[in-house]
Structures are given as structure tokens and as C-alpha cells.
């Protein structure tokens, strides 16, 4: 669930409020983002992707609030990690979209599984 808005990073652009598919976020005093309906959060991480200031942090657990603090979030080293790895905005040149490799990766797994099954069969043959 969404756990943290790092207040001194939030520039109040309102983008996360607009894009949240579960309408969890709202604009608070001074226009900054606040978590208005935390229980509705679906842990999709997409608000992080749209936040240019890396001010938001989602905790992977889906069914209960974890009470993560801003300090704990920063200590994970992964605040902003989703936007960086996705190569959005200033990360475009350094983190290109490698999603197209998915088909080849699935194929590698399939071939490895066939190999493993063959090896298992030969070993079986030897012990018998």
C-alpha cells in the first residue's frame, strides 16, 4: 500500500492525485499530496512512476497498513527506484526499456526445463 508522501520533496504538481486509479490521493493544505483513502490503495506503484520528485513510497504488502516512515522508506534505497528502472523522464538514456526481451527469456526457461528433465531421466536410468 501507499505509505509515505515525503513532504519536503512534494512540489504539489497534483499528477499523482490525477493518475491514481483507486483515487487514494488528494491535495492537502498548500496543494501537496496527502494519502486520503489508504485502505483503497491497490499497490500498483503507478503514482511513483508519475511523480517527478520521487516523493512517494509504496510498500509491497497489500492487505494491511505497515506504518512505514519517510526515514524507513529512504533507508530501503528504493525510493524512486521504479521510475529510474522504468527509464522515465531524466532516466531515459541510462535505463532503456528492455521489456521486449520477455519472449526470449521465457524461451530460455523452457529450454532449461527440457534440459533438466533430460538430465533427470539419464540419472534415473543410471540408478536403476
Amino acid at each position, binding site marked *: 500500500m501507499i505509505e509515505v508522501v515525503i513532504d519536503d520533496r512534494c512540489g504539489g504538481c497534483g499528477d499523482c492525485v*490525477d*493518475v*491514481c*486509479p*483507486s*483515487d487514494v490521493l488528494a491535495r492537502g493544505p498548500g496543494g501537496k499530496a496527502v494519502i486520503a483513502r489508504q485502505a*483503497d490503495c*491497490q*499497490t*500498483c*506503484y*503507478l503514482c511513483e*512512476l*508519475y511523480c517527478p520528485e520521487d516523493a512517494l513510497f*509504496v*510498500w*509491497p*504488502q*497489500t*492487505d494491511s497498513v505497515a506504518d512505514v516512515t519517510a526515514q524507513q522508506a529512504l533507508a*530501503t*534505497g*528504493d525510493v524512486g*527506484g*521504479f521510475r529510474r*528502472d*522504468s*527509464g522515465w523522464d531524466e532516466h531515459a538514456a541510462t*535505463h*532503456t*526499456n*528492455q*521489456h*521486449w*526481451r*520477455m*519472449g526470449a*527469456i*521465457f524461451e*530460455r*526457461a*523452457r529450454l*532449461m*526445463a527440457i534440459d*533438466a*528433465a533430460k538430465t533427470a531421466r539419464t540419472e534415473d536410468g543410471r540408478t536403476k
Partner: protein
Amino acid sequence: MADDFEAPHWETDVLVIGGGLAGTWATIAAAREGARVILADKGYCGTSGVTATAGPGHWWVPPEHREAAVADRLKRSLGLGDPDWMARILDLTWTSLPQLSRHYAFSTDEQGRVQYRGLRGPEYMRAMRAFALEAGATILDHHPVLELLTNADGVVTGAAGVALRGERPWTIRAGAVVLATGGCAFASRLLGSATNTGDGLLMGVEAGADLSGMEFSNYYTPMQAGTNMARSMSFAFARWFDEADHELDIPAGPDVSPHLARALLKGRLYCRLDRIPQDIREVMPQVQPNFVRPFARMGIDAYAERFEVSLVSEGTVRGVGGLRIDGQLCQTAAPGLFAAGDAASRELVTGAISGGGAVNSSWALSSGQWAGQGAAAFARGRRRAGERLHHLGQAGLRPTGRLAGVDLPAAVQLVREEMGAYDRNIFRTGEALAASGEKLDEAWREIAAHAGGWGRGLLRARETAAMVAAARWSKASAVQRRESRGMHRREDAPGLDPRLASRQRAQGLDRVVTRFEAASPENTSLEAVA
């Protein structure tokens, strides 16, 4: 609610309900036909729905290999697929994806060839939003639709809903309507599925449409326990362990979930991803940036340590069932109403097995465009000035009895349990299915009689009604299919029954009715009332 005279009122040629993959393609296709289009989404078109959090690889097959691809897929559809529809979606996928080049930065491989097959979800849906806006459509975000409207002849003529900001009701008068509300995940917390509560199925049936394939609504995916990260690629390399760390003999392959479910029924299940080769580990964050987040944040070295896994129920999302398609342009049985994507039954292209991994996204892209074209043509051919509009919504909106406090979270939990439990929904028996059906019927009666509300509360009541309804159609269809076919696995009727090699329809609100299509004369005797 919608009877409120103050309610904002819009008018358009085509209304598209749901702004995921299918809804955006429908919007673009209708606009190309010259129609004025409004797209209304419960969330935000661009982030909501299961497309945005996934990375759909399409059924992308060069022309010379298509015949073989269709033949293979037809065999695996176990008697319920249709080769013509399969060929149609292959053709349209091939010509459609390159059109996105202005909005999506397609990658090139080492040889410089452009890679169209798979698109990363957030970027794909961001591109589809831009594409739809460019086509001239109006997008209403955070505008969930609650019900359909008809004219006096029963032709669908619009919809009504609530705007979440300000919690204001609204209505839209339209020449035709496309339902693209996605699948129903039955509150399982599957990644990206929170707004996919089956609303379109309920609205469609209220308008006179029927459903098909609802028994095939039990697809499950492994994920790290406690999270929602149902991205399956890495698990193709997995080794599985029980609590005592004994490796389980579970062969890799598409049918891994039932094996995992059996292990989970005995105790905790763990996974090691240590077989993933180093070069793949390095590129993983840029292939699936969301997959690595839980590990990075929780301090787990996924490639070295074991971690606990569970299965998440996807319901009809990567299941099959939905609104029955009744024509080449994705008409439903209700005049003026079209269906696309996961809201529609995908049996024509997948049969009794899941279309996840290629076919479903091609279906969403194709059915969306056909529905959009069909709706535009229907709207053009219809005179509609001054028609009186009838509001069709019942359960969850307009209680038949006194409005009273219904325990909606308890009803949602019931759906989650009955549509999620491995021992009842993966390994099925007639007896257990009927028992689930009875519990769900009781919840339905309570909701229909007493649930309602205002603003967001009204939306929750309606979503709950929709999930309970979809669960009832699923259980009733599963009861009547007394055999095992594809993902529908009856422990009390193993194996295929050749007499049941036909699609099964479902409809009915207070009383659920299912009926097998007459594929052969002996099938007509199986007409059944559940």
C-alpha cells in the same frame, strides 16, 4: 441518484465504458468512423485495469506462420474455439501495433529490427491514452458507470454513474455503448485489478445480454506471498520447496498452478529463483521494473534466498468467461450494446484454456476495434432525439425492499473465499460448487433487497452486487459442466465428455439459468436450470 434533475448530462454518438486496452482501442476505432466518443473510466485511463500493470505480449505471428498458429491454438482450445476468429485477431494485431509508433517508443533488437510483440504496461496505456485523445475522444476519469439506460424499445441508449470528485451523479445519452470494463478478479487483490469488479457483466445482463464460458474463471498465478506481484516470467525458472526445505517434484510448464495448489493445501510453499542466469538477472529491472520492487524494498535477495509464495486467483481476467459475442462486430444480445476485451467471453479465440501470454491482449486490441466500429455504425443508423430514458440498474442501486445496512465487506469476503479457495475453485466437485452457489445466492438476495447508498458508498454497493452476480454465474456454469475441460477441473468428473464439447451460456439475475449451445443433437437434452 440518477433521477436527480441537477445531474450533469452529456450527449454523444458512442460511449465506451472502461479505458483499458480494449476500451481505448474501441474509442480510437469509433472516432475513426467519424463518431463523437466519450470514454468513461472508474479510475484513470492510462493507469487503471490489468493492462497498465502488466506487459502484454501479443499474438504476433507473421503471415506465413498464421495457419499453423491457428491450427495449434484450435487444438488446445478443446473444442470451444473458432478458427475464423483466431485468424481475424492475428491479422488485426499485425496491422494495429505499428500504428502506435508515434506514442510508444518501440525497441529494436541487436539486428536493428523493431520489436512490436510485447509492450510494457504503463507505457502502453500512457500511449493509448494519448492516441485516444489525438483521435478526438473525450475522456472522463474517475467516472465509474453504475448502470445502463435504454429507450422504450429496449435499445441501449446510454449510461449513468457517479463522479468520484464531488460524488456527483451524471448521465450520458449515447447512440450506442461499448462495455470494456475488464474481467472480474473477485476481490483477489490481483495486480491492477481493483477496479475490475465485473460491473460490465451485471450491467450487460440487466440490459438483456447473456454470458458464455463462466465456468472457466479459475486461472491462478504464483506470486510472492503477501504481495500482488503476479508477473509470471521469473517463475518459469523456479524451483519449489516445502516448509522443511525439501524440493518438490513440480515440472515447469504452463500447468504448474494445480501442482502448487496441492502443495499449498498441505502447508507453506517456498520458491528459489537461483536458476535464473546472470545475464537475465542483470537486465530484469529494465524488463519488468515492477517485479523487482518487493524484493528490493523488503531486503530479499530473490536469486539466493528462498521466499514464500502463494497463488492469486485471477477470476475471469486470465480466465475466459464474459459477455457472449453475438456477431462479427462484437455485438452482445442486447441491441445497441457491444462488448470487448476481458469483459467479453474469449472462448472464440482461447476455448477452455487461458489466453494469457498472447491471445488475450490480441483479443482486447481486436475486439475493441470491432466493437468501436460496430457502435459507430449502430449510432449512425439510429434516430434518437427526444427519447425517454429508462434506468436499468437494480441490485446495489435500487433495493427492492427498505434501504438497510448490508455488511458489504462480508459479502466481498465471501466472494473472495468462494472464488479463491484452492480446494473448491481449482479442484471442483458438484457438491462443493452447489454449496458455494447457495451461500452466494443468499448474499445476492440480501444485496438486492437492501443495499444502496450515495456517492462512493453507492459505487461499493454496486461493485459488490456485480462480484456476487459474476460468482453465481460462474458456480452455476461449473455445476452444469459435469466433466473436466481446460481450466475447469471436476474431481468428480475427470476427463472430457465429448457430448459437452460446446459453449455454455448463462444469464438471469434472481434466478440463474445456464444452457449449452446445441453443437450436436444430443447436447440439447443437457439444457439445464441451475
